[in-house]
């Protein structure tokens, strides 16, 4: 890239700010501040890694799904997550970084992914609750990100949002089914809700006052709503769903505020959040090891594909 003079770069910055103000999307070849590029790479690749690591807790139950319908569904959902990871790696690559580098950042533990996936899936009910709460929270976040100011990220989000609705509905179907089932099934689903509710609220990230990146990302239109706004929106959507399903959300302080029309909730255990983010969650090491193993034991597939491509090329050249 050629060096810009100070004057040129302030001109370009002005144009960039104008585009953002006007609600125009920034496209890969447009000029953008280096910091914008870096923040986007960090944010979109974290999102991509989350999709990839997110396959692990659910993959855990594919062989033990209770019937064929559930098994097919779960397989399709996990395959979607792989696809979502690929859409997002593809969006990140438009910022001038190779996927190989991103994968390396994940496998060496340099990059982060959503801390929700560092919790274990202990029962079949967890598959239902993940679809309902975890994918539900992801949808709230992603629906907002579909309007993000970076074109390729926005397009990936639109595609992902369309597919996530199936994820949430299949999860909610499992939850309502179990909640109407035997006493053991009801206990199982309630136990699962108890374990996943608070980590789901943490998915939106730290509270606005403790989120160092938020202000800048909001100013650039990369984020459209703050962490706390999105979290509140998720709670408001979920409380009636929990009531309808017949499960209890594990928060004695949950109450409706007539004035703000919000469901107010109790304090989040941020100590736990930071512990999990910094690598001390229940499954951090297990997840990393599973990813590394999957990557190295899949190496022969990549080598075979390459060998096949070379062979085909030789054949074509000879013909």
């Amino acid at each position, binding site marked *: 890239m050629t060096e810009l003079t100070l004057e040129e770069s302030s001109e370009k910055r002005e144009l960039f700010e104008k585009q953002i103000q006007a609600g125009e999307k920034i*496209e890969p070849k447009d000029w953008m501040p280096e910091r914008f590029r870096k923040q986007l790479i960090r944010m979109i690749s974290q999102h991509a890694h989350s999709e990839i690591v997110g396959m692990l807790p659910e993959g855990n139950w594919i062989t033990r799904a209770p019937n064929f319908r559930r098994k097919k569904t779960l397989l399709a959902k996990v395959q979607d997550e792989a*696809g979502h990871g690929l859409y997002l790696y593809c969006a990140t690559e438009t910022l001038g970084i190779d*996927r*190989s580098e991103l994968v390396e950042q994940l496998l060496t533990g340099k990059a982060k992914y959503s801390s929700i996936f560092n919790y274990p899936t202990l029962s079949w009910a967890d598959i239902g609750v993940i679809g309902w709460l975890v994918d539900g929270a992801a949808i709230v976040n992603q629906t907002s990100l579909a309007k993000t100011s970076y074109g390729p990220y926005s*397009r990936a989000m639109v*595609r992902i949002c369309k597919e996530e609705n199936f994820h949430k509905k299949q999860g909610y179907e499992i939850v309502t089914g179990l909640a109407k089932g035997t006493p053991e099934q009801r206990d199982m689903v309630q136990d699962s809700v108890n374990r996943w509710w608070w980590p789901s609220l943490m998915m939106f990230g730290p509270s606005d006052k403790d989120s160092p990146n938020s202000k800048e990302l909001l100013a650039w239109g990369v984020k459209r709503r703050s962490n706390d706004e999105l979290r509140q929106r998720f709670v408001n959507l979920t409380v009636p769903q929990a009531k309808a399903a017949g499960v209890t959300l594990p928060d004695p302080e949950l109450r409706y505020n007539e004035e703000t029309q919000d469901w107010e909730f109790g304090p989040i255990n941020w100590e736990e959040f930071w512990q999990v983010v910094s690598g001390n969650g229940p499954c951090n090491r297990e997840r990393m090891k599973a990813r590394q193993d999957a990557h190295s034991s899949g190496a022969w597939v990549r080598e075979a594909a390459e060998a*096949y*491509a070379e062979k085909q090329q030789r054949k074509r050249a000879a013909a």
Partner: protein
Amino acid sequence: MTAASKENNCKTGETQWDLWEVFTQPKTGAPHEHAGSLHAPDREMALQNARDVYSRRGEAVSIWVVPAREISATLPDDSGPFFEPGNDKVYRHPQFYSVPRGIKL
């Protein structure tokens, strides 16, 4: 594969194959639209990967894959003067012409 990608290959075993841009046609009669990109070692596997990544729910009846490096594109910096010839010719639009009142054309 380039020398740089071979190097990456050694570090993580991640094969940085060629980048392909994917275009899908949602139904016959519609134009092919850019769906995204993917990596593949050749065009045959690029098409198969494109089907698995961009058409898991019948989103396409036809797929094109194009090596990303084969695409020529305008640059945002040049786009002003490049598109200029089309911008100052208002007479190319029907609103430019006046028609007597009451006549429907």
